[in-house]
């Protein structure tokens, strides 16, 4: 028995980062909005407080803020000849649960993609010839340019109070910032964070070997800041617990603290938590959706919520899954190359390393992901790929802070992992280790994709999403290249010893690597090459919009949150300015 509710203007599926941003923008435009969230509400004043928030076991080891795998997970296999098996507890990536979603625990690195990233296929073809891109590398140009998105990057910066230093202000290159970044109309909202001891050493070393280091942009203010919605944000406290916990300082960007205070009481907004959206109701003939069906997890009742239009704002996997399960668009088939939903699934090709210094003191517990130093000389098309045998790249970053003790105790390779000698070495190097990371792109490959699993079901009986992914030869070569450049900077610091860790040949669901999943509902220029148009509007249902990294045609060499935030604002602006007045397709082909 399904109870049909009264129609509202907008239903937003998922109240994570972009879901809440969209709800806020739509209510500001006068629309009635229902936000549906499968997870719990978040009450920062109850949950994100001292001392309970400083609990590495609960948040980091037991991953309390992540999606409950018993409710939903994905199955995984390296290639389509294998049987996919469920990820029974999260490992390689960590989707978040509840209002605020993954931003409740994210690391907060806040980037823009390069102007050339948005036209990557044309750029490579132009530079290296029409046959340069291998047949199985299905990268495409974005249907939107950096210049078009710049005002929305700017607005997203001002939602988050990003700390950073501009390296390109309206075309003028500024030393100390990232000179490779696209032109910004404004400085970062707040100054860059102070760097840790290790990051300072890394900056000097990178400079000495001829690279262009800068302090990473961080999605938390370095000083108190009033954001674009008038919410006063706190400043980063360099607590060292950031990566898997929420922020007690109301500094790290999440809509929980940055938007909800001014959205929660809005009479046009209704938040329903523990509302499990089962499907989007789709009228294929009319090329329209009529609303959604959801289960109220608190009563077990099933409801149909009709809506003028629907915004799909779940995590990458959730967006693709909802499209496949609701039967909107054609599922991708890697054998024929036909179909688009699930195509161009990409990950982040991360690799890392550690250097040990006998004579240095670097407090590993004191710091923030934003107090590190990066260089961007080997990202995207910032360097010549002639003769290298791969395309793509990424930023390279180093620093010494942010490591509570269960997870943050580096010892040199070959040290026993237990016993008295292990203890001795652990104490010896605790203050002397510096960590590095290369944040590599993943250029889409026709063999990597998402579809519905034939065997395993979620907690309401739907097939799980199946992920078929492995690192490609291109991406392995790219990553080794980044490590070789990292090594130059590491050597310049004269460490006592160091080690670099390339990724193993096969992608593995354990241990943690990166939560940066992208693709599955890619945007493009026409219904033949994409699931949505340049505004995230679904070609096959003009009153359905998608936000988030599932729109990415491929993943570039940066964390995805900056671009996906900017794109949500770009979509919101188009809906408010044009779609609401004249509902229907925003792009005609």
């Amino acid at each position, binding site marked *: 028995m399904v109870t049909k509710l009264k129609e509202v203007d907008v239903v937003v599926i998922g109240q994570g980062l972009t879901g809440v941003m969209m709800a806020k923008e739509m209510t500001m435009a006068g629309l009635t909005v229902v936000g549906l969230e499968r997870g719990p509400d978040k009450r920062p004043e109850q949950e994100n407080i*001292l*001392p*309970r928030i*400083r*609990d*590495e*076991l609960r948040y980091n*080891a*037991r991953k309390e803020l992540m999606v*409950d*795998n*018993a409710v939903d*997970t994905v199955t*995984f*296999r*390296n290639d389509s000849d294998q*049987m996919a*098996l*469920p*990820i*029974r*507890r999260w*490992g390689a990536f960590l989707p978040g649960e509840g209002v605020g979603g993954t931003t409740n625990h994210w690391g907060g690195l806040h980037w823009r993609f390069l102007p050339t990233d948005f036209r990557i296929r044309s750029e490579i073809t132009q530079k290296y010839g029409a046959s340069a891109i291998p047949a199985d590398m299905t990268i495409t140009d974005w249907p939107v340019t950096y210049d078009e998105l710049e005002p929305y990057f700017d607005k997203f910066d001002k939602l988050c109070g990003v700390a950073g230093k501009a390296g390109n202000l309206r075309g003028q290159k500024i030393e100390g910032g990232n000179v490779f970044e696209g032109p910004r109309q404004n400085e970062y909202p707040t100054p860059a964070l*102070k760097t*840790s*001891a290790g990051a*300072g050493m890394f900056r000097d070393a990178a400079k000495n070997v001829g690279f262009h280091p800068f302090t990473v942009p961080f999605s938390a203010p370095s000083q108190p800041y009033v954001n674009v919605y008038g919410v006063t944000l706190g*400043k*980063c*406290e*360099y*607590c*060292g*617990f950031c990566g898997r916990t929420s922020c007690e300082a109301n500094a790290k960007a999440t809509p929980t603290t940055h938007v909800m205070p001014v959205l929660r009481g809005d009479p046009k907004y209704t938040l329903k938590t523990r509302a499990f959206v089962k499907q989007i109701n789709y009228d294929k003939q009319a090329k329209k959706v009529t609303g959604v069906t959801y289960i109220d997890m608190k009563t077990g009742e099933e409801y149909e919520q009709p809506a003028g239009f629907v915004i799909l704002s779940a995590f990458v996997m959730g967006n693709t899954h909802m499209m496949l399960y609701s039967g909107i668009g054609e599922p991708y088939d890697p054998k024929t190359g036909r179909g688009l939903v699930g195509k161009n699934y990409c990950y982040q090709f991360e690799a890392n390393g550690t250097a040990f210094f006998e004579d*240095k*003191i*670097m*407090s590993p*517990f*004191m710091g923030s992901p934003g*107090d590190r130093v990066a260089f961007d000389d080997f990202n995207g098309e910032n360097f010549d790929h002639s003769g290298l045998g791969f395309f793509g790249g990424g930023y390279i970053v180093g620093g010494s802070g942010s490591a*509570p*003790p*269960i997870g943050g*105790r580096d010892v040199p390779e070959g040290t026993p*992992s*237990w*016993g*008295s000698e292990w*203890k001795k070495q*652990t*104490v010896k190097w*605790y203050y002397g280790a510096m960590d590095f990371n290369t944040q590599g792109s993943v250029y889409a490959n026709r063999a990597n994709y998402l579809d519905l699993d034939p*065997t*395993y*079901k979620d907690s309401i009986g739907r097939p799980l999403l199946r992920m078929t992914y492995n690192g490609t030869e291109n991406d392995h070569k790219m990553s080794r290249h980044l490590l070789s450049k990292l090594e130059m900077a590491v050597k310049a610091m004269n460490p006592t010893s160091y080690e670099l860790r390339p990724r193993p040949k*096969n992608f*593995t*669901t*354990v241990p943690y690597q990166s939560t940066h999943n992208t693709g599955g509902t890619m945007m493009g220029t026409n219904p033949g090459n994409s699931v949505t148009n340049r505004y995230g509007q679904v070609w096959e249902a003009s009153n359905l919009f998608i936000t988030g990294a599932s729109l990415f045609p491929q993943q570039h060499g940066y964390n995805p949150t900056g671009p996906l935030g900017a794109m949500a604002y770009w979509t919101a602006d188009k809906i408010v300015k044009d779609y609401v007045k004249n509902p229907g397709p925003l792009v005609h082909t």
Partner: protein
Amino acid sequence: MANDESIPRRDFLKGASLTGASVAAAATGLVACSPKAETAASQATPATQDTWLVLTPEEAEFFIAAADTIIPKDELSPSGSECGVPVFIDRQLASAWGGGDRMYRAGPFVKGTPEQGYQLSLTPHQYFVAGVIAANAWCEKTYGKTFDRLDQAKRNEALTAMEKGTAEFDGFESKPFFTALLTINMEGFFADPIYGGNRNKASWRMLGFPGLPAIYADKIDAYRGKRYPVTEPQSIADFS
């Protein structure tokens, strides 16, 4: 049997008895430089006997022996069991996490590739119960005694064999069992003491980890490249 007489585990069980003062004394190697901290340490240590929520006597003895082998008592810290690591393990296995909370447990259960991660139907508690039985059976077959009755050298040898995967347990894989055992020991040793391990913040003292409140915005400049003074680490309980 002579070896048994010298087994720390036996001493420990007998003298559950280990009072706060004697645990603190074991830790003085680290805090001796700070008389103030030593006093605080002695006051902070509980003097109660370990009791178990879910561990059987065999499991308790196994985990005590394993904790004291993985984290032996030396000049850097008290032993794993003195630090409460077995108590931590007991509470974790009794917790929602130990019972398989937030874990996808629907079948079919198929043996996958290493890349596909953990694919057994067992909860962490069930896994450790089976693992301890398998480990002890292997120790009996190999050494004629259960793990807890081995002397220190044999315990080291047995754990090394499990770590390398050369210990051929009957119907159970020794290498992943060792990884799980090592992980939960490290969690118990380094987690906030609120969970029953890391008593007297012994591991935090050992490392020089200050604990809470972890607010460093006004300290990051002053202590860049300099040792941050950690005389008395602070835990959740200290702020509650």
